[in-house]
Every structure is written in C-alpha cells, then in structure tokens.
C-alpha cells in the first residue's frame, strides 16, 4: 500500500467511527465503497496498468455499490453520494475509452471523488455536532442547522425495490 491508500483507509475508519452512532447506514456505504476500492486496486495490481480494460471492472464494482445505495437510500445526503458514485463510473468509462490519461490522472480523479464521498459523510456529521453544540435557533451560526436538516431530509426510496402500495 502506498501513502495515499493508507490515508484513505485512515480517513474511512475515522469517518466510520464518527458516524457509527448518528447514522449506521453511512458506515455500511463506507464499508461497501472500501471493498470496491480494495477489489479494483487488486484488479489493477494483478493485470497491470498497461491496458485500460481493468477500468471496466472497477466501474462495475462502483456501479454495484451505487445500485445498493439507490435501492436502499432514505436521506438527501445519500442522493448526493449516488451522484459521487456516478462520477466515479464516468471517470472509469472516460479512462476506458482513453478520454483521460495517463493512469496517474485517472487515479487522482478517483482519489478526489473518494475523498469527496468521505467529506460528504464526515462533513455532515461534524456540522451536526457543531450545530447541536451551539443550540441552533436564533444563533448566528443557525444556518448550520439548516444545512443538517437539508442533508437529513427524507427522500422516498426509488420504488423499484419495493412493491407499489
């Protein structure tokens, strides 16, 4: 493992620990994302970076995570997480058809999106802590509470996984 991968693992563990109490589903998404990251890293290690087609399987793994989130999401912030995973799949496609390159540009693009996902989950939790500590209403920092409420707004799960009532 290189230092960037170690940093990402440490970030994922810290975000998981921070969100474990407030939203356990976030830990599940972080774990699924980490598994997808580890599996795609293994695929790239095994087949080497000489060709672009392992990006197809990396995209497939990201798509599997995105489908799970689409099927079981309940809050607004999870919708934003879906958009980030859609971005990761696009990056994989772009690398597959050689729209972006060299390999380091592809890795940096994916790294940015991985950190964006962690920042979304971790940021939501931290803003929630600050908002709770300040006591939201009437406080000059009351907009933090509005951000948390907007992110935690309930969203109807897209219905293909559930039977229509």
């Amino acid at each position, binding site marked *: 493992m290189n230092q960037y991968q170690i940093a990402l693992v440490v970030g994922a563990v810290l975000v998981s620990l921070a969100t474990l109490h407030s939203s356990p589903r976030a830990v599940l998404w972080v774990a699924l994302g980490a598994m997808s990251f580890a599996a795609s890293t293994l695929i790239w290690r095994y087949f080497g970076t000489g060709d672009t087609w392992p990006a197809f399987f990396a995209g*497939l793994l990201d798509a599997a995570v995105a489908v799970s989130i689409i099927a079981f999401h309940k809050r607004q912030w999870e919708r934003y997480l879906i958009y980030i995973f859609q971005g990761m799949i696009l990056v994989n496609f772009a690398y597959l058809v050689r729209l972006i390159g060299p390999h380091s540009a592809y890795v940096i693009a994916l790294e940015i999106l991985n950190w964006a996902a962690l920042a979304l989950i971790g940021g939501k939790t931290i803003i929630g802590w600050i908002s709770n500590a300040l006591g939201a209403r009437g406080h000059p920092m009351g907009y933090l509470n509005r951000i948390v409420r907007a992110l935690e707004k309930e969203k109807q799960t897209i*219905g293909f996984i559930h039977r229509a009532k």
Partner: protein
Amino acid sequence: MDENLAQMLIRVSGSMAGSMFALVYEPPRSRLGLYRRVVVSIPSGVIFADWARETLKMAETWFNICASATIAAMISWFAIGTLIRLAKAWKPPDQKAD
C-alpha cells in the same frame, strides 16, 4: 468450452453489466419498469453487440464483444425508458379533456 457458447456467455454478461450501468444513471420508478427494461435491454445487448462493435470500428476480441454488448444494452435501456415516458405522455384525442 464450445466457442459459440463462450461468446454467448460473454454477450450475456456484457449485457447484464450494461443494464447495471444504466440502472445507476436512470433507475426505474417501479418494479414493473425494472422488469420491462431488463427484459428489453439484456436480449438487445446480446443481439446488437455485433452491430455496436462494427459501428464503433472495434476489433473482434473477447473484451470488445463484451464492451459492445454493454453499450447496446445501455442504449436500449435508455431507449425503452424514453419510449415508456412518451407512451405515458401521449393520450388519444378523446381522452385529452381529462
């Protein structure tokens, strides 16, 4: 393994991958929509894989067959979604007053 069977398996797995990619970008609103799109996109991916590969001028390798089945399945997924929406938007003239 028989080469035809292997090629069919590759096309089917490419089509399934295409359906999954399309599901991420355009999830259906109901289970019926999901069934409709899967029933259309997977056979379309298998059938139109060669057409997609020839249109994109890709060489006949195993990976290119898989990728072209994926592309064909994705296109048909979006096409069936558009058709369903158009069909729902269209009303016969006698029902337009409703």
